[in-house]
């Protein structure tokens, strides 16, 4: 059936649960592009007959044209949604993506990600006069100044704002300022203990 493969791509998007990025489906994309090419060539050949006055081929041309359009739309939707997914991860993980995510990205997506990183960094630097504001901090409304955290892995020494150095050892618990350890919590080094 026409545009079946493109629909598969959309189904793949739908199946993807939040927070993961499936491998870039290069094979299927190539197949869709080939289908577009075939449809286009068929149309070009038939168009000659139509020009000669055979009006019964017009319906076929239109159907193929709709197929091309649909393929294109599904393909762009697939690519665009992947970008959105990657963008969400940028906010979650910071400027360096985990290796397994990176492995599933295609070369162009890596390029796009780097570009996006640069744009975002430039923008955040330009906020205010005193060297910018990190928008990826303060993701949740602050409830209290200090939070109780537990270390999930050995992270080494960590210097707090007032100059005290603490050792983040696995399974140790600390009472830290929320603004300082927020990114460590998101990276999974610390765990916020909710009482």
């Amino acid at each position, binding site marked *: 059936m026409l545009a079946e493969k493109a629909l598969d791509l959309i189904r793949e998007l739908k199946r993807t649960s939040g927070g993961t990025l499936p491998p870039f489906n290069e094979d299927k*994309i190539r197949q869709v*592009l080939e289908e*577009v*090419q075939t449809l*286009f*060539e068929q149309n070009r050949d038939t168009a000659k007959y139509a020009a000669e006055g055979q009006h019964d081929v017009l319906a076929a041309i239109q159907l193929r044209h709709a197929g*091309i*359009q649909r393929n*294109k*739309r599904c*393909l*762009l939707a697939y*690519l*665009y949604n992947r*970008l*959105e997914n990657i*963008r969400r991860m940028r906010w979650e993980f910071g400027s360096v993506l985990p290796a397994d995510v990176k492995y599933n990205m*295609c070369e*162009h*997506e890596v*390029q*796009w990600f780097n*570009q*996006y990183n640069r*744009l*975002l960094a*430039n*923008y955040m630097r*330009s*906020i*205010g*006069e*005193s060297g910018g*504001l*990190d*928008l990826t*901090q*303060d993701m*949740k*409304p*602050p*409830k*209290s*100044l200090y939070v109780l955290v537990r270390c999930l892995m050995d992270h080494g020494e960590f210097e707090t704002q*007032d100059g005290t150095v603490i050792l983040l050892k696995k399974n140790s618990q600390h009472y830290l*300022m*929320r*603004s300082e350890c927020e990114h460590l919590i998101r990276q999974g080094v610390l765990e916020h203990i909710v009482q």
Partner: protein
Amino acid sequence: MSTEDVGDDLLETVDDEEEEEAMTAPEVLHKLEEAWLNEKFSPDLLPVKSNLVECMLDQIVAMENNISTLKKGDFRISVHRMEIDRIRYVISSYLRHRLAKIESLTTHVLQEEEKRRDSENVLMSPAELEFAKGYCNSVMTHLTNTALDHMPLKAATPNAKEIAVLPNLDSYVFLKVNENTENVLVEEETVDAREEIMDFEKGDQHIMRYKPIASLVESGGVSLI
């Protein structure tokens, strides 16, 4: 904790923090909070309030300087730190919401900005505009490189109109009226219903479609809640 509480707390501290600006700093913060909520709940991008953001960022720096003059262990430090955290959250959340909208509605906001270019009331700050343009370009390049380049020429031209994501202006919003406004056209005349006109009184709260009241949100006549 409700926003109301946060607001009140903030007002107090900023108040005794900056005595010479006691009249303005709380007002600025209040305005910023209103802008933040409006931005959060409106489906479309609203004009940027960069002066409010910059003013509050300066306030934060001033407060931090004040804190550093206090002795270590002074209980006021933690109170002020908390306020700084709260203000910073409001600012970053405000800018984040804007960025998210710019990213999803890129083409749309760029067109809107083009329309407003000459007026005073710009939609985006220069930095945001640069970001929007860069983002638009990078997405288009990606789509071109991965898919469009491999299609036959005729099909490959990207149609801006087809690709643009438009905000859903018909989505419903909660709103609170700040100024008495009369004769607001809430519903246009259709085939089977007459037009609906309402008078807004200060303090009223409504749920209605965003589109008819979009201009009021911009002028500050109503605020979204």
